[in-house]
């Protein structure tokens, strides 16, 4: 019996465990409804190879402090809910692995240029209002569905689709608006998210709302207030390039393209 035990103890495990390490997670805490105080609470949490910043925050929420306010949903960079500043840079918490940050201390804060609801949750009202303002849908008189003749297809070539497809990936996470230096100063600025979406629909060959959209963004707080810092494009988790969209939109307004 003892020989058998020894054999078992010498047998190599087939399960490869990633080494567990700990990081210090600093979470910004504030509640503007109560007072203007902002502080950082620190938590030491275990992380593994695939632990994301969102996992770490939810670990804190589950085991250490239930009151941490964070907005999240899909956990796969599709819903755009968990945008926040991670070590000073706007990013999706569910799309940022702790090990990729190469640091033992992670600081999470709410996104800049958004009013704070509480802790890491911010108010998206301004961004959504600006998004709605630019008419984020295909505008045309006729419909793809004809009551008399059935369904009509509005064809596009792959080249037509290429003009706008990357801008369709926007998940409205607000990271671009958070990184934008003009948004920080100009509270009426329409923002890179809405401008990129304006380009997305203007560049769509099915759309007939170009003139109306250009009028909306051709405002003293519209497209011309972009200083082309390019930080919006740097932080986009979906590879959208709002800075390029804004420059392409400007070329319409300057008469350089039809």
């Amino acid at each position: 019996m003892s020989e058998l035990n020894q054999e078992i103890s010498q047998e190599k495990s087939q399960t490869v465990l990633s080494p567990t390490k700990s990081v210090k997670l600093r979470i910004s805490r504030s509640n503007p409804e109560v007072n203007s105080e902002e502080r950082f609470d620190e938590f030491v949490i275990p992380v593994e190879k695939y632990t994301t910043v969102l996992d770490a925050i939810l670990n804190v929420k589950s085991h250490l402090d239930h009151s941490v306010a964070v907005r999240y949903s899909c956990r796969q960079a599709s819903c755009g809910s968990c945008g926040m500043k991670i070590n000073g840079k706007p990013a999706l918490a569910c799309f940022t692995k702790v090990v990729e940050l190469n640091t033992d201390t992670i600081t999470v804060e709410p996104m800049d240029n958004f009013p704070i609801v509480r802790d890491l949750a911010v108010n998206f009202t301004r961004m959504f209002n600006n998004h709605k303002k630019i008419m984020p849908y295909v505008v045309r008189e006729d419909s793809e569905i004809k009551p008399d003749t059935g369904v009509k297809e509005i064809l596009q070539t792959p080249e037509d689709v290429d003009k706008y497809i990357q801008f369709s990936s926007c998940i409205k996470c607000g990271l671009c608006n958070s990184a934008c230096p003009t948004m920080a100063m100009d509270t009426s600025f329409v923002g890179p998210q809405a401008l990129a979406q304006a380009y997305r629909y203007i560049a769509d060959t099915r759309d007939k709302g170009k003139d109306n959209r250009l009028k909306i963004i051709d405002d003293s707080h519209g497209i011309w207030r972009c200083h082309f810092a390019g930080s919006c494009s740097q932080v986009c988790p979906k590879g959208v390039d709002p800075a390029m969209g804004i420059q392409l939109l400007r070329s319409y307004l300057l008469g350089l393209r039809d």
Partner: protein
Amino acid sequence: MMILRESIVMKIHYGTALGAVFLTVIHILMRMTQDFHESLQYENVIANYQMIGYAIMLELLLILISVHGFNGLRVILLEMRQGPTYEKAVTYGCIASMAILIAYGSRTIIMTSMGMV
């Protein structure tokens, strides 16, 4: 109240920048036709103003730089603060300041070129 569409204002802004750079280059080249210390002597400065072509160029330069500069100032001020009253005050204030500066500069150019100084 919007006086002009922002795209037209910005076309003017970019156009005046290009024009001002072009005329400033001519202005600097003109200075290089003589030694630098000579170009700033009273008689030479007055003589420059009395060349009609040069006086017209200076007047154009004054207009281009004033329009570009005050529109730039308007843009900076609009980004710093927002609100309908403030924005109206900034817009009309910049237009008025621009007009005063152009009028005062034009007066100097006209008086000097006509030998009234």
